[in-house]
């Protein structure tokens, strides 16, 4: 059974009793390498665990976090009412140590366990022991998880339940040759899924034979066709143990990169009530067919003619469940707990409303400028969620100081905004993204911020091919208009002057008096994207008037140089920028409209003298291949002396379950190879040199 992308883990929460309330939350992980540092797992889970704990708190249920000794400072451990350490770092001694966990359950008097997904949910031995102790499972039973977890079996069940399924080949492909043959029969494009990959991981789309055979190298998975320009909708279902099931409307999940969702919203702009009902009813009938109980999600692919096809059913609370909660007013975690306890559903289908609009952005630690998001790693040196804004919800399992490593999913958080209308929710999302402080890792806020303001997205014309169609040459960040450019230049200039003025302020009694340069006017030279602008700046208090090419820009603000956020007013408009970098040599990086821009501010004198400075020649990159991200080398296809053609694959780097083919930038002979399969490489490490 596959582990799902975000949670290749098990978490369980246990809860409620009439006498003594206690929830036990334990976590398990399937780490690739048993020697992997377990402390890094935290991020993956905590996000969900904290969400569960929050609901339990609301319900008056006490929670107990189970953790290994290294995770004692993880977020979920901090927010739980009680914490039990079940052993040392290795998972076999802690999270997999059934005895320790059973002891923890007994010791705390906990009465329910959520088996989650991953090994423990399939571990019948564990289930038996829990049952023997009279401890309740929260979540669907093993049978449903197994049935829906198998991509092939799930389709057969769906077909039997009269759910629309995608025409295609549901089986294991032996080699590239066979893959090409089958793909040809189905018709391009086809989606090929690696058997090892869960969720969107390992899913690739091939548009022709060549691409299919390239992928054959990796895959032994199944092939199905894909709606070339379709939608991805997820129907939330809720089923109790008494055969009752509800559908809680759809979530629009079409904005994806590498078949993983990036921006989701509920409801969808495209879906009409009839289609919604038809989909909902099929989802419910599928749930009934597997005797599903608890919350689950049925994913459909939808083509432009509103034909929908069953893709898969996720037997868990999905990442984007908060947006369904926002528009329906239901707390899904609470519903899951009720269902587990054996209560009947409280609501009828006709009770389920669509109130307002909710949008969710998945904030990832990844570089959106590389294939819409290649994983990045680092330590979150600064981290501040925009929680002081109303109608903003952030579910995250990380905190300032967390490490983001190559071994886990790079998700930082899910950022949800809610509004009465879609417009309001999107506006709120803009503010939330501008006020979100993430330092230490590269993140995808530039891309998220661009998507939600893109005219095509705003008008609701969304499809799974949104990103490649809108950015055919790759994402390049926000393109500044002339007016925005002026705003940015003016802000940088004002910030520079504010910093200069502060550096003359010395406090205390001074033996030798300070004679600051008295100036109310500054002539500055600001460089942005290799073009240089002459700016005139004048100041009165905290207000700066910046003259750029004859146009005046008024900028005012507090100019707190220590704050990560820079809330300012530009020409009467309120904006929040972030100052990412400010150096003595005049470099200023500002995050403006989501994208980070590098500027250099110099006095007129310094700028005029800079022209004498020697140009330092950057290294020629066409003959060297560097790793675009941290990861491990899966395969190296060349050796020194080989001749390679431009675009030919040289090696494959894997990070976070994702394989990236590295190709030659020019036709040349291979000079040297600096890596071998199995090596761990960092971003920018030299892999192969060409002549």
């Amino acid at each position, binding site marked *: 059974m596959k582990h799902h992308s975000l949670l290749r883990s098990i978490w369980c929460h246990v809860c409620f009793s009439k006498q003594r309330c206690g929830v036990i939350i334990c976590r398990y992980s399937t780490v690739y390498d048993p020697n992997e*540092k377990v*402390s890094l797992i935290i991020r993956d889970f905590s996000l969900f665990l904290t969400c569960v704990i929050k609901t339990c708190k609301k319900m008056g249920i006490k929670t107990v976090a189970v953790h290994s*000794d*290294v995770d004692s*400072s993880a977020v979920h451990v901090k927010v739980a009412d009680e914490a039990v350490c079940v052993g040392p*770092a290795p998972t076999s001694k802690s999270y997999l140590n059934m005895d320790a966990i059973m002891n923890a359950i007994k010791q705390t008097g906990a009465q329910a366990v959520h088996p989650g997904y991953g090994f423990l949910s399939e571990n019948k031995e564990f289930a038996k022991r829990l049952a023997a102790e009279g401890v309740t499972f929260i979540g669907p039973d093993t049978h449903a998880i197994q049935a829906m977890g198998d991509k092939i079996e799930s389709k057969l069940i769906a077909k039997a339940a009269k759910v629309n399924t995608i025409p295609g080949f549901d089986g294991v492909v032996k080699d590239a040759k066979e893959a090409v043959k089958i793909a040809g029969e189905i018709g391009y494009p086809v989606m090929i899924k690696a058997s090892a990959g869960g969720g969107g991981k390992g899913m690739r789309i091939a548009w022709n034979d060549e691409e299919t055979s390239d992928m054959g190298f990796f895959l032994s998975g199944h092939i199905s066709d894909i709606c070339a320009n379709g939608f991805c909708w997820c129907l939330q279902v809720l089923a109790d143990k008494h055969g009752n099931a509800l559908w809680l409307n759809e979530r629009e999940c079409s904005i994806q990169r590498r078949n993983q969702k990036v921006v989701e919203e509920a409801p969808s702009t495209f879906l009409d009530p009839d289609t919604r009902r038809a989909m909902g009813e099929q989802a419910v009938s599928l749930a009934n067919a597997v005797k599903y109980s608890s919350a689950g999600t049925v994913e459909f692919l939808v083509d432009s003619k509103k034909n929908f096809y069953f893709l898969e059913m996720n037997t868990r609370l999905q990442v984007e469940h908060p947006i369904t909660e926002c528009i329906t007013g239901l707390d899904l975690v609470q519903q899951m707990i009720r269902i587990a306890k054996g209560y009947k559903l409280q609501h009828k289908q006709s009770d389920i409303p669509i109130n307002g609009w909710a949008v969710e952005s998945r904030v990832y630690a990844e570089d959106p400028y590389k294939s819409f998001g290649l994983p990045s790693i680092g*330590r*979150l*040196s*600064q*981290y501040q969620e925009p929680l002081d804004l109303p109608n903003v919800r952030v579910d995250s399992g990380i*905190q*300032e*100081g*967390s490490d983001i490593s190559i071994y886990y999913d790079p998700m930082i958080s899910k950022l949800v905004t809610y509004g009465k209308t879609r417009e309001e929710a999107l506006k709120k999302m803009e503010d939330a993204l501008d006020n979100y402080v993430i330092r230490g890792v590269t993140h995808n806020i530039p891309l998220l911020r661009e998507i939600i303001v893109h005219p095509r997205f705003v008008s609701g014309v969304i499809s799974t091919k949104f990103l490649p169609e809108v950015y055919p040459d790759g994402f390049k960040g926000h393109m500044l208009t002339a007016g925005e450019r002026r705003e940015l230049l003016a802000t940088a200039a004002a910030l520079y002057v504010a910093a200069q003025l*502060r*550096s*003359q*302020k*010395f*406090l*205390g009694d*001074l*033996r*030798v008096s*300070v*004679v*600051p*340069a008295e*100036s109310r006017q500054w002539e500055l030279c600001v460089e942005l994207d290799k073009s240089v602008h002459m700016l005139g700046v004048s100041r009165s208090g905290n207000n700066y008037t910046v003259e750029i090419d004859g146009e005046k820009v008024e900028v005012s603000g507090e100019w*707190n*140089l*220590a*704050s990560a956020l820079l809330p300012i007013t530009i020409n009467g408009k309120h904006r929040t920028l972030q100052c990412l970098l400010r150096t*003595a*040599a*005049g470099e200023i990086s500002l995050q403006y409209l989501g994208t980070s821009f590098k500027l250099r501010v*110099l006095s007129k*004198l*310094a700028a005029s*003298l*800079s022209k*004498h*400075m*020697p140009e*330092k020649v950057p290294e020629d990159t066409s003959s060297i291949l560097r790793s675009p991200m941290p990861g491990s080398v899966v395969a190296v296809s060349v050796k020194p002396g080989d001749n390679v053609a431009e675009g030919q694959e040289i090696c494959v780097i894997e990070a976070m379950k994702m394989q990236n083919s590295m190709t030659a930038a020019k036709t040349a002979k291979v000079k040297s190879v600096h890596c071998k399969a199995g090596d761990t490489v960092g971003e920018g490490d030299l892999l192969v040199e060409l002549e």
Partner: protein
Amino acid sequence: MVIFLTKTHQFPKGGLCSPPRERIEKKRKAALTGGGQLRIAAQHKRGKLTARERLELLLDPDSFVECDMFVEHRCSDFGMEADHNKYPGDSVVTGQGRINGRLVYVFSQDFTVFGGSLSGAHAQKVCKIMDQAMMVGAPVIGLNDSGGARIQEGVESLAGYADIFLRNVMASGVVPQISLIMGPCAGGAVYSPALTDFTFMVKDTSYLFITGPDVVKSVTNEDVTQEELGGAKTHTTVSGVAHRAFENDVDALLNLRDFFNFLPLSNKDPAPVTECHDPRDRPVPGLDTIVPFESTKAYDMLDIVHGVLDEREFFEIMPNYAKNIVVGFARMNGRTVGIVGNQPKVASGCLDINSSVKGARFVRFCDAFNIPIITFVDVPGFLPGTAQEYGGIIRHGAKLLYAFAEATIPKITVITRKAYGGAYDVMSSKHLRGDVNYAWPSAEVAVMGAKGAVQIIFRGKENQAEAEAEYVEKFANPFPAAVRGFVDDIIQPSTTRKRICRDLEVLASKKQTNPWKKHANIPL
């Protein structure tokens, strides 16, 4: 006849009859153009600024007050007495000015005049401003760009060097002295920067060596380029002669302005305090999780340092040399502090010859100029081995010990993890008059690591693993030190900034003196 000759030959530039005012203007103009437009163009072509351009950029606008613009060399040999060989001001520009409003004395060698070579007059100009800087109590910044001694002047030039050296030594510990090497600096000339507190270099355009590649080749038959022998990379990574290198002249001068703000004007002044926007009681949640659970795992000490400081701003000194120790300047609640930290990421943060010397010199600078020192300790001990022993780790390690022990400025110490053996004593321990010594909960103050200790205590005995566990239980935590008062408190890491800011305020009025002595005898 005589008069006639005098008129035509001796004063061709101004002429005896031209009014003094005109001559003054002429000389002044000549001084401002240094070696002339051609040489200025050549200087620019090399990617270097002129002596005056550099000062203009280094100092606040219109703040430079020049001294000795009319001084000329006095050499009368080898045709040097000829009028076209005299340049008003000679090969150095000197004076005083302001950096962010604060007084500084400067000299800037002019490569366009005789290659910036040092004449008696040149040295005399430099000495004059140094003398005045000492009397006033203000730092001296030298911008070095000189081919070396003025060969034509012979011993006069050597005397000039020695005069400067003497003043460098006299000023040492009285006013901060900074050298920025912006061109060649060879032969005896190198010793002036070496005597100053900080030596910075410009990448690709500056060199420091005793003898150039040609002499090296003839004496030792080594083939080496200027850059390899004495470039910025060599001196900031291999030799430890320079404290930092910058991309180019503009970058270097702007950074120097920034650096200057950290320094007090003299040993009579307290560490400067600037306006601070960073809340002094700001919690730093990331610090609670930074020290890995496994004590063998590395982490980056700079993450702790950046988290604690005002605005994460850290001016690191020698960032690429002896990287197992981190030193540099920063501010806490606006006040300049010196940071010393073991770097677990490099060689486990052990102390070796180079890191001891690097740390010692930095600590002594801070002590001389009233800059409080904050020490972050995660040290497994001194590096063992023949290379270290033969190299004299004993006497070099003693330097750091000496420097911490002798220092009377406020000393705050935070033990983040390991503080083992003699290295524990060295790193600003309570026993060396640390004012406030903290331990994080992850601290382990012990004679050595558990394994080594157990091997000695229970030599030859069985159940070593059990003994090791017992040792860990007993000593691998902050209690043995805390119950003896060797650490003042065990603190939550996230409160470190708040605690230090509060302590610094209290310790600002600290007074401590060492016994009278002519001078101390640090093990050099």
